[in-house]
Every structure is written in structure tokens, then in C-alpha cells.
């Protein structure tokens, strides 16, 4: 128990987040009780969070390297459309015999498309030095454009019945897609905290210039990060088409705001270098519980938007005040004279 406290004390964001999440869940449980927290309710929540969780994780990675990815939803849309086309029977006739192969092909198409969208973003950002926000604004329109041009904006239906099982099947009590999400979070978390590449991601986010002066291939860090983002986007697309059994461009546009919101809520710094996957997971739970409760209270989508927007501003504002004392590397100024004096004296 002592260890837990020590652990929480080390990460202020985690403690605040954990506390708020617990409090919100308790309050909502008292208000909604079994309507929210039945097995069925929990399962449907975990399915919903899966779809969005991949996109949030992708956004989080972008922020770790001092970027932002406005194209995640558009890229997921494009990947989904490509996969849906593969599994629509329009190009490859579907027979009971080749259904499995078609599904595998569809999954591969989704992942490959996602990877390519990520690589293009990474290329534009790393090799052409376009600021991430503009680069992904451009590719967001481009990916939407490609998707719309291919589908003429219409919805593509899947003709492989067994694929939808991905969304409904369970591993024990847990929905399959949720297990996928959980596994992905664990893997990404391990990559970030336990590998050299992960360390470079944090270093890059903290100080891109010092990364180059440390002999690290900084452009490769960016390329690889956005490639991983692309794969996550592909995974999101797979979950979306499995659940909806169809895909159209423009699906899930509201996810963009929510993805930024949840990442900021989890304590990621938009300027890079700070943020933990564990916190992101907790923030996702919090967001999903609030979202589902709002549905239970019959909130309109607009009312939800107010809540999301309000939370976003409140969290950012709070972070500003909490961080006000903390040193920020980016200012590139030597610590002011008084700080220097204070530090000197404290050391003596």
C-alpha cells in the first residue's frame, strides 16, 4: 500500500486523474446504478471505447513528439473504406470458401493503408519540415478526398458475415475488440518506456535539437512514430468496420475533438515529451463513463459537445496553473538571475 502511495506521489497527473475518475464513477454509480454498471452495460462501453481508443492513442503518440495529428479520423476513414471495398464483394467475389482469405486480405489492406497514411505524414513532417499541425491538416483533406473520390461519398457495405463476429465475440467476459485495445495499449506502453526507440520519442518531444546533437537519427524517430500512428489508425478502422459492418468517408468526425481532449486530459503536453499510456487509459475510461452516462441521461449530442469543450478548456486551464511553477525547457532562456541565485543558495 505504501508503495502505491509512493508511486502515485511521483506522478501528480496520475493521482489527480485516478482520483477524479474514481469519484466520477462512484457518483454516477450512485445515480445510475445498474443501468450503467451491469455486465451488458460494461460490455457495450468497452466495445465503444475500443473504437475510439486506438485513435486516442495515435493522437497521444503524435503529441509525445511535439506534434498533433489532425488526420487520424480521415486516415481511419480511408483505411476503413479500402478494407470495406476489399470485403464488399465488388472486386473479389465472395464465396463461403474464400471468406477467411478475404477477411485476412481486408485486415491487411486496412493496416497497410493506415501504415501508408502514417508514413506520408511522417515523411512530410520529418523530411520536408512542415509543422505537424499543417502537414496533417493537408493530409486530412487529402485522405478524405481520396476516400470520397473512390466511393463518391457513399457507404460501402461488407459482405462477409463472419467478420462482424469480431465485434460481438468475447474472450471470457471481455469483448474481443477490447482485448485488442488492451493488448495494443500494453505493447505501445512497453515500446515507449522500455525500448531505445521509446526513449528517443520522449527525448525528441523534449528537445528536437538536442536529439540531433546527441547523434540520434531524429528524422527516423519521427518517421517511425507516425508509422506506428498509421498502424493504430488501421486497427481503429478494422474495429469500426467490424462493428458498423459498413464504412463511409466522414465517419466519426467528432472523434477528432474527443481524441485531443482525452490526450490533454491524460496530462500529455501538446509541446511534446510528456505523457504516459497508463494515464491515457484511465482518461479513456473516464471519458467513456461520462459519455455513456450522458446518453443514459438522454443528453443531446450538442449537450455532450458543451461538456467536452468545457472539460477541454478547464483541463488545459488547470494544467496551466499547475505548471506555472514548473520549469519549461522550451523557453530556451537560461533561468533568470533570481532563480539562479535561489538555486545556488539552496545547494550550499
Amino acid at each position, binding site marked *: 500500500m505504501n508503495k502505491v502511495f509512493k508511486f502515485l506521489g511521483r506522478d501528480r497527473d496520475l493521482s489527480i486523474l485516478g482520483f477524479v475518475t474514481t469519484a466520477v464513477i462512484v457518483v454516477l454509480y450512485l445515480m445510475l446504478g445498474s443501468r450503467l454498471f451491469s455486465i451488458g452495460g460494461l460490455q457495450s462501453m468497452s466495445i465503444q471505447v475500443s473504437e475510439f481508443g486506438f485513435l486516442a492513442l495515435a493522437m497521444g503518440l503524435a503529441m509525445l513528439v511535439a506534434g498533433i495529428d489532425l488526420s487520424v479520423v480521415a486516415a481511419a476513414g480511408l483505411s476503413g473504406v479500402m478494407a470495406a471495398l476489399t470485403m464488399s464483394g465488388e472486386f473479389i467475389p465472395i464465396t463461403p470458401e474464400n471468406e477467411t482469405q478475404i477477411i485476412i486480405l481486408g485486415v491487411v489492406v486496412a493496416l497497410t493503408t493506415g501504415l501508408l497514411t502514417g508514413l506520408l505524414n511522417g515523411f512530410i513532417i520529418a523530411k520536408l519540415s512542415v509543422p*505537424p499541425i499543417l502537414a496533417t491538416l493537408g493530409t486530412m483533406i487529402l485522405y*478524405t478526398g481520396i476516400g470520397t473520390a473512390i466511393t463518391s461519398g457513399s457507404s460501402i457495405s461488407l459482405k462477409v458475415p463472419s467478420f462482424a463476429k469480431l465485434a460481438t465475440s468475447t474472450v471470457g467476459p471481455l469483448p474481443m475488440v477490447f482485448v485488442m485495445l488492451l493488448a495494443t495499449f500494453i505493447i505501445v506502453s512497453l515500446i515507449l518506456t522500455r525500448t531505445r526507440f521509446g526513449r528517443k520519442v520522449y527525448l525528441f518531444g523534449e528537445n528536437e535539437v538536442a536529439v540531433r546533437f546527441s547523434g540520434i537519427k531524429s528524422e527516423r524517430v519521427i518517421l517511425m512514430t507516425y508509422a506506428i500512428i498509421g498502424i493504430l489508425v488501421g486497427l481503429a478502422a478494422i474495429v469500426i468496420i467490424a462493428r458498423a459492418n459498413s464504412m463511409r468517408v466522414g465517419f466519426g468526425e467528432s472523434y477528432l475533438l474527443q481524441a485531443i481532449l482525452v490526450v490533454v486530459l491524460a496530462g500529455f503536453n501538446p509541446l511534446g515529451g510528456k505523457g504516459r499510456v497508463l494515464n491515457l487509459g484511465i482518461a479513456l475510461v473516464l471519458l467513456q463513463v461520462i459519455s455513456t452516462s450522458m446518453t443514459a441521461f438522454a443528453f*443531446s449530442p*450538442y449537450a455532450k459537445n458543451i461538456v467536452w*469543450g468545457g472539460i*477541454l*478548456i478547464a483541463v488545459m486551464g488547470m494544467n*496551466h496553473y499547475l505548471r506555472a511553477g514548473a520549469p519549461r525547457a522550451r523557453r530556451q532562456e537560461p533561468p533568470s538571475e533570481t532563480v539562479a541565485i535561489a538555486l545556488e543558495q539552496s545547494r550550499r
Partner: protein
Amino acid sequence: MMRNVTTRVLNRKMTPMEKFLLAIMAIYIVIVASQSPKFFSLETAFDLARNGSGAMILALGCLIVLISGGLDVSFTAIAIVGGYSSVLLSRALGVDNLLFIVAGAVIIGALLGSINAVIIHFFQLSTLIATLGTASVFHGAMVILLGSKTFTRADVPQSMLDFGAFSIFTIKEENSQYGLTIFFPIVIAVGVLTWFLLYRTMIGRSVFAVGSDPESASRIGINILRTRLFVYMYVGALSGLMGIIYFSGLAYINPAALVGTELGVIAAVVIGGAKLTGGEGTILGTVLGVVLWQLFQNTLVHLGLSSSFNDLFFGAVLVFMLGFIYLRQRQANKRALVFTSN
């Protein structure tokens, strides 16, 4: 004096971006005109003026924000909130007067803009994230407070219908007639006003100064909060105006419209050469960026392409232009041994 100014404006060297945009535009026009002779006509130009005027007004507002070093994504929400609430107000009061409706929208827009400015200033927030938040709040609050009822032609105030249909002159042909919309001179007026504010007033110069270097700006006594208030209130006011123009043009009032198109407007301003880092951006570049965007939005049909291809073309040009702009800067930085992150 006036002539002096005119010659100065005309003699100004174009930025590389502006030249580049003009070249792309010229190539596009030549290709489309060769495919479809009907394209190269006054009718097309008038159509473009009508369809693009709203976007142009928003883009000019967006330009000011970019020059000030910010990025606003709430202006479409403000346009809808300003326009919709003003229309509801006029219906409630039974005042069917265009000036009243416009004034209402402009004032509401400016007020919402001031909220943005205050939040950005006091919380020191990333302008993108702050306005992303306020956009949801503004739009959501409006729908909850005022409802989301749409109004068809029959319920739109008559003054707006007249406004939307008014042409400053019309050309009659055998079986058709078309005119230049009243929106066009309004856009020109907004452009001139924006130019004047940016280049001929101290507050406009403060916007450039704050965008260039906020720290230095405050050192020489520029009031940053006042400058930000000006920037976001001006954008808000323009957005309110745009909301009325938009509803009038369509003769249909839908409070769910427009929101979601803001990134396209920003993209158009950015390919016009405005930089995210602040202090840079030109009105001519913005105009060219918007015209190019609107060309893709409205004239692909002359190439036999459906509107499904709009985003593809615009996105491709956007990515290409961004790559071009920043690759040049990257090479220059490399030469000058400037080791900065973007």
C-alpha cells in the same frame, strides 16, 4: 496620397507563394477552359463570386489570427451562432430589417470572439485547443438554448431573402440571366477594411508585432491583451457577418451547417503563405488561396468530375504547396545553421 498608395500596392513584388499560386491557377484555368469552353465565361466568375464570398470573409479573419500567431477553429461555429441567434431575435421582435439582423450577428460574433481572447490570454492556452473547446461550447450552448429548428424559404426574414437574391447588375442572355451578387462588393469592402486595419493602423501593426515576438512587443509597451481582443473580436464580427451572408445566400437556415468546414478555410489561408509562427501573411496570398480552393470546389464539374473530387484536388495541392514552402525554409535553415524545431 491615394494614388501614391495605389501605385505602392500595385508595385509590390509578389511573394514566391503568390506567384506559385497564380501559376497553378493559370494552369488549371487553361486546362478546364480547353476541356469546356463554357467554363471561361462571366457566368462562371459570377457563380464563383457568389459561392466563395462567405469563405473569403472567413479567410480574411483567419488571416489576422494567423498573423497574430494564433490558430482559430471556432469561427464557423461563431458564424452559425451569430447568424442563427440574430435571425431568431429578429423573428421574435418582428423586426425584419437587414441592418438590424447583420448588426445583431456582428455584435454576437464579436462578443464570442472576446471570450476566445480572454481564455487564450489568461490561461495561456494553445489557441487551437482553446478554440476547439469554445467552438463546441458555443455551438452546443446555442442549440440547447435556442433549439435546432431549421427555417425554409417561407420562414426566412424577407429582408434576408431580398439580400440574398440582390445583384448589383445582371446580364440577360437568350434563355438565361445571371448577375453579380451584392456579396461581391461586400467582400471587397471587408478586404479593404482588413488591409487598412492591418497596414494603416497602429493596432494592426501591433498584431504583426505580437505575432512576430510577443515578448518584445510587450517590452515596447504593446498591450497584448488588447491586441488579442482586437484580433478575436474582429474575427468574431466577420464571422457573424458571414453567417448572415451564408443564410441569405441559401435562403435556408440550418443551425447545423458550416461547422466542420473551418479547416478548409485555414488551409486556404495557409497556402496563401501565412505562417503558423505568426507575423507573416498577406491579403493577396489569402485571396489567391481562397480563389483556388473555390475553383476546385465549384468548377471540377467542367472537367466532367463530380464534387466527390473536390477534396482530392484541394488536398493534393495543399500538401504539395506546404511541402514546397517548408522545404525551402528547411534548406535555408540548414545553410544558415539554424537549428530550430518548426
